[in-house]
């Protein structure tokens, strides 16, 4: 976690004043391997990680979108969400046609609907969420 946060901080520290939306997509995509490493660390099954990456890739979604999806899952797990529904839910949303930010927001909404991360910004395991902290 510390490593991921350190990388996110370094990326966030980049001189964004010079950076347009196009470059932000590259910077977000650069986070994908580190985010996936973090997802594995917090307990997402290897098979689910590979399955989701393959599903996103095979549908032509950019690495930036994959980074958003994985980040949402990490945040949800940090907030106490179960680790066993990642692949199935992402597949369902992809099949429904969701992409990009809408896909990430659907994952967030699904977890919130299960009451993850509440009340008062804390999850079922009592840990504070870090949503919004290092997002690009």
């Amino acid at each position, binding site marked *: 976690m510390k*490593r*991921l946060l*350190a*990388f996110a901080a*370094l*990326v966030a520290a*980049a*001189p*964004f004043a*010079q*950076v347009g939306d*196009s*470059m932000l997509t*590259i*910077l977000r*995509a*650069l986070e*994908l*391997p*580190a*985010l*996936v*490493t*973090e997802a*594995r660390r917090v307990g997402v099954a*290897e098979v689910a*990680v*590979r399955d989701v*990456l*393959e599903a996103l*890739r095979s549908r032509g979604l*950019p*690495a*930036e979108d*994959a980074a958003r999806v994985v980040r949402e899952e990490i945040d949800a797990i940090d907030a106490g969400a179960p680790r066993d529904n990642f692949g199935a839910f992402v597949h369902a949303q992809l099949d429904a046609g969701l992409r990009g930010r809408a896909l990430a927001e659907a994952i967030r909404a699904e977890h919130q609907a299960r009451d993850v991360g509440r009340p008062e910004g804390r999850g079922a395991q009592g840990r504070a969420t870090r949503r919004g902290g290092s997002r690009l």
Partner: protein
Amino acid sequence: MSTRFRRLCFGTALILAAACSRSGGERAAAADEGASAMALVDRAVAVALAIRTNPAAGDSILAAHGLTRAAFDSLMYDVAADSALARAYAEAIR
């Protein structure tokens, strides 16, 4: 231990592990696979560090590494999909 040394150790271990787990002619192929995997990480890390230093030059940096946007996305997916490669990448860029 320096990041460079850790990466060197990781690369060597990857190549040796791949080579030792097979026999005969497969060993050379396995060693090639390990070296190729490390080259993938090295390329991704080089791109990441360069872009982090100068994000405004992102497209130029990708081009300098012979990458289109699509190829760059593919590189990120390739590294992310392999737990060892993704970990090596995360270590190298932190």
